[in-house]
């Protein structure tokens, strides 16, 4: 396989190739692990300092009472969308090319949502009382305010995390069974536990297939709802630049856009280092490229709408806010965003670009940068120039801010690096589904 053979593999090949990804890793892998762990240490250090000395350690102020934390929170939630989209929606659409990437994408989803989940905690002024947001019976007869978008977030995100995880695990069970059968000793014992004693008998498959289908159809609206809910954190507020009915679809599209970029960023190296060219073929890259291109174009459309509505509204404060964003202190961020999200993806109109890993990789990175800045531009400049001129102000990120934002990436990658060495990052079963099953009468044709 190491010769990067691309003719269709047999069932046995699939098992062998996937299991090979779990062999003990090389030094490069450890180097990465160490680097990431280091950043993560910085992350926790900064967080601890912030809890101890107070939210002032972060660069927030009036009027930007939200800033980089919520930016990064929304960013990660967005990343978390591609996985379930691929595994659920594309599953329902019977898009067969999804099979070889969806496992990685799902893992990415879960880790991204976990990372995002940290931020509401980090962000809260008194995170040790964050449990006030949960509806639990207490002797004070107090309940959360179900009218607050933040409480919607709590429900949406926790649901999303649990359902994606369940979905992920269900998909894993048959593969773990395969691992079990291929391994020995203590690993075998662990795997047989995780495999729940899966045997692939006909009855199991019946219910399995049905359950998987149902989960997919539940997850589909969920994906769309989660980022809509997140978008309402802003749309429900008065702040000029936030208060818009456009936000839900706008955010969902952006989420998918950034999600696919992240998938590429994760899949391409795996394809390279694990020699999975047989499974992640140019066709896959091409499809991903197309998806990024489409979502990118849709996003551009939304940007235009955003500008148009605020100009067309004829509302002075809305217009002032927009004008300020485009011209003043944070203009550079806005234009970076426009370039990364609207211009850069256009290169994918060319098939050559879509099938070239390098180009795709570069575009994906640009897209991620652009999408982070999109959230930044929604939050920081809008707040910086809202209704009340007295309090207009400029936000400067503090070391704490930066360490925590960077650290969140470390958190994510550490989880992902761990995953690819512990679990099959390709779905053995589903990859097999894409291969024509062995048939004797045509078997001695070759």
């Amino acid at each position, binding site marked *: 396989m190491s010769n990067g053979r691309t003719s269709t593999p047999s069932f046995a090949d699939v098992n062998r190739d996937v299991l090979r990804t779990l062999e003990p890793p090389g030094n490069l892998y450890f180097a990465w692990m160490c680097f990431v762990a280091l950043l993560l240490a910085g992350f926790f250090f900064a967080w601890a300092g912030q809890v101890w*000395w*107070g*939210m*002032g350690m972060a660069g*927030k*102020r*009036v*009027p930007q*009472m*939200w800033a980089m934390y919520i930016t990064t929170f929304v960013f990660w939630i967005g990343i978390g969308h591609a996985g379930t989209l691929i595994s659920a929606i594309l599953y329902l659409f019977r898009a067969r090319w999804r099979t070889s990437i969806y496992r990685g994408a799902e893992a990415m989803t879960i880790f991204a949502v976990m990372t995002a989940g940290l931020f*509401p905690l980090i*962000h*809260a*002024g*008194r*995170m040790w*009382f*964050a449990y*006030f*947001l949960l509806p639990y019976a207490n002797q004070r007869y*107090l*309940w*959360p*305010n179900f*009218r*607050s*978008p*933040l*409480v919607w977030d*709590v429900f949406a995100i926790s649901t999303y995390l649990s359902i994606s995880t369940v979905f992920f695990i269900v998909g894993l069970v048959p593969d773990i069974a395969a691992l079990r059968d291929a391994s020995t000793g203590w690993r075998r014992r662990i795997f047989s536990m995780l495999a729940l004693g899966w045997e692939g008998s006909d009855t199991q498959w019946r219910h399995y297939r049905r359950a998987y289908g149902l989960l997919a159809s539940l997850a589909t609206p969920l994906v769309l709802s989660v980022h809509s809910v997140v978008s309402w*954190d802003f749309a*429900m*507020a*008065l*702040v000029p630049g936030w208060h818009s009915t456009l936000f839900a679809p706008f955010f969902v599209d952006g989420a998918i856009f950034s999600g696919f970029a992240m998938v590429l960023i994760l899949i391409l190296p795996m394809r390279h280092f694990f020699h999975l060219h047989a499974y992640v073929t140019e066709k896959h890259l091409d499809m991903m490229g197309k998806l990024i291109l489409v979502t990118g174009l849709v996003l551009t459309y939304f940007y235009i709408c955003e500008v148009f509505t605020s100009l067309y509204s004829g509302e*002075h*404060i809305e217009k*002032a806010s927009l004008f300020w964003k485009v011209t003043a202190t944070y203009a550079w961020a806005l234009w970076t965003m426009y370039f990364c999200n609207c211009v850069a993806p256009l290169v994918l109109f060319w098939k050559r670009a879509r099938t070239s890993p390098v180009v795709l990789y570069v575009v994906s990175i640009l897209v991620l940068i652009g999408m982070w800045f999109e959230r930044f531009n929604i939050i920081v400049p809008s*707040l910086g120039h*809202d*209704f*009340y*001129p*007295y*309090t*207009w*102000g400029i936000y400067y990120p503090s070391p704490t801010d930066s360490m925590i934002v960077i650290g969140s990436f470390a958190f994510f990658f550490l989880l992902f690096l761990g995953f690819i060495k512990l679990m099959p990052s390709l779905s053995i079963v589903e990859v097999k589904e894409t291969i024509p099953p062995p048939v004797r009468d045509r078997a001695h044709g070759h």
Partner: protein
Amino acid sequence: MNRRDFFKIVTVSGAAAATGGCQQASESILPLVVPNEHLVPGVASWFSTVCRECPAGCGVIARNREGRVVKLEGNPDHPVSAGALCLRGQAALQGLYHPDRITGPQVREGSAGFKAATWDAASKTVADKLAALKNGGKSRAIAVVTQLENGNLGGLLDRWVQALGARPRVTLEPFAYESIRAANRATFNRDAIPYYAFEDAEVVLSFGADFIETWLSNVSYARTFKRMHSFRDGRAGTFIHVEPRQSLTAANADEWVRNAPGTEGLLALAILRAMVDEGMADRRFGEAAASVDLKRAADETGVSVETIKRIAKAFGHAKPGLAVGGGVSVSGTNATQTQIAINLLNAAAGNVGKTVRFGADSAYGKVTPYAEVANLAGAMAGGEIEALILGPGVNPVFTLPSGLKLADAIRKVPLVVSFANVPDQTSELAHVVLPDTHWLESWGDYSPREGVVGFLQPTMSPVRDSRPMGDTLLRIGRAALGVEEGKGPIPWPTFEQYLKGAWAPLVKGDLEGALRRGGVFGDVAPAAVTAKVAAADSTPPKLAGDAGGLTLLAYPSLRFYDGRSAVSSWLQEAPDSMTQAVWDAWVEISTDTAKKLGVVQGDMLAVKSPQGTLELPAYISPTLHPSAVAIPMGHRYTPYQRPRYVAADTKSVNPMDLLPAVADATSGGLAFMSVKVTLTKLGTRRPLAVLQATHDQDHREIAQHVDLGAAREQALRGRPAEEAHPTLYPDQKYPGPRWGMTIDVDACVGCQACVVSCQAENNVPVVGKASAAYGRQLHWMRLERWAEGKPEHPANIFLPMLCQHCEVAPCEPVCPVYAAYRTEEGLNGQVYNRCVGTRYCGNNCPYHVRRFNWFQYEFPAPLEVQLNPDVTVRQLGVMEKCTMCVQRIIAGKDRARDEKRAVRDGDIQTACQQTCPTQAITFGNLKDEGSGATKLTHSPRAYHVLEEIGTRPSITYLRKVVRGGGHA
């Protein structure tokens, strides 16, 4: 009963002062040893006294909880303040509880600095020295300097001085208004500063008199000015202000006339001339202004002939008008001449006796002339003085021009005794410090003007080991004279006994009553005077320094007066209303100068005069006269500022260090406008902490105004019926009252008193320069200045902004835990202990009046004692905001229930409303049609800030009424 024991009590009040929800060790609670009928733990008792933060002498009532004063309020019975208090008065508590307050008697040990000593030891050192001098026949070498003490303390000191045969006592006030006295001598043959009846004037013409900031009696004149000026049943007076710089007072003028510094006299005469020409004044005033030619005057003053004529017309037709003069630009070497010209204006317009009333003369008339001070300085320099006794509140080294070389002179004195209770630049030079009690802990009396005697009584036991100056001096004096108590010229055991003795005839047996009222208040018959018309000379003031330089305007600060209030971090953080800058001092330069030097705001400038150099950050002002630079007095944030919110900077920021010791030619009074300075750019930066991002409303109609004519019409027609708010939802019902507030923008003068009062009432912490500069200040209330029109000649509107307590509050629904919610009495509740700190409400508040505790803010001991036990001290990570003083509302309802009645209008006053000198704020029940607040909400001038958002605030603003075509 012995008053000292009165307060010997500890209770659980400490608990309420502890930060909201911090784990505490099991504490012990201590009962009184002896039951005390005056004092119930948990119930406030009030004591009336007199504010001594400046010589205005406003009446104060101090709220005492568990033996500690926690809040000051104006004494409603006192004729000067009439219930109001300025920001300096409000912040007096910070002096009382200042962390740096001197802990006990100190004696200097050579160069090693001060060492704590016992009272006996310390006073013995002094007594011995004095005795030695007296017996050595050198009693004239003893000098006593105090602030303006025209009450019995002054009397006692004078007896003491006589007894020891010392030099006559010098009462030192940097701002002594001697030019006014001298001018009145010249014109009216009366050495006094009269009572100026602003309230009776139709037109006020002020030549630099900053009566809203520091001039004579800022609280009472702000009040009376607004009574004359604010729009009431179709009538409103006019206020014209002449000053080279747009001060806070100038910003309140209907017409601010910017003249060249020092030309006020000339302008006054020109106006007089115009009046005579127009036949609005008696011909005999003609010759006084004969020398003046309008054309030339116009050129020199930079005020057009039309303007002069217009002013003359307005002033001449006023029945009556009032012309006043003062401030730094009228304190040059020609100050007295200027004041004479102003007197002539008043005389010519027939205001004398109407609005210029002699009789109820100001206490300032009793200040020792500056000449005497200069003599004393000379004597000290010449080594004639061997014992210098400095009372509290005098800090000549800081407050007098460095040209006087007073510091060096004092260093020559072998024994300097200071009674300061907080260290300052002068007490640093002392050999013995015998800390006097703070005025809130002292007996005494003070008469701000004839006929009004305010009584001081201790409102609590001393915070530190300090003793009344009177007692200490009596003891020392007797020791020096070698007589024991009860004998000799000064027999009284304590000042208190002396005082009570002296009061006896005054109070006619009802001491308790007098103390309750806060003094003995009477009226004195007006004294008739006749004006002597003599030509006033209008030559410009002589200015030292580089002729090509810029005139230095070292103006007294609303916040720090001459600097004696600068120890208060509340005041340091209360923004200067015009610049909205906090903490740091600055040099105000005009736009042209800035262009010439190529500096932007915050660039450091070296301000050089023959006396020395100051390094200050630049504040660029489009309004300042191009030929002038302005530096506020009184800034001294180091080293006497705790906690150290500002990086300690040993460099002086005191403009006095630039002034030569020049006196007004005629009166001999100290000239503050006496030097020209040159500016050089240093290249470094020290950005100012300016709280207001911009003074331009960007057409958002936050602060609105209406033309006088229109206002009159509306007043007649009444308010058009309001259209109902369209809504799908049922309106909120208020079972009980619905609290609301109205703020009359027309009445607000922007004095910041409300801001500091709120800070004192609600335990609002101080955040320091860095945080304030970064939009992290915690004031629940802020005072905004909005400027309209030409930048170099803007019309200003002052707008107090606080939580609007919206009925449809954007902050509430976004809170995930109901920490922000709507109470059934129409407030926006904020429950600190429920708050998680998502700050969503802060983002969603269009007014940005919600404050977040970015850190755990400190109240360095003993400042924490001042904390209001009825208000939670907020923990880090929670949101806070104006509660409309809910603790006062609760108290008011409780009182009403005790008396088995409903809450009446006026029962409950918020802290900001209570202290407002111009009564711009009215709080009340909006459901009660009869309440003052409700009535005002029906005014045609009523509006809501950012009404179009539909938040339906409970706070209604009343438009400012501007004169003449949108010119506010």
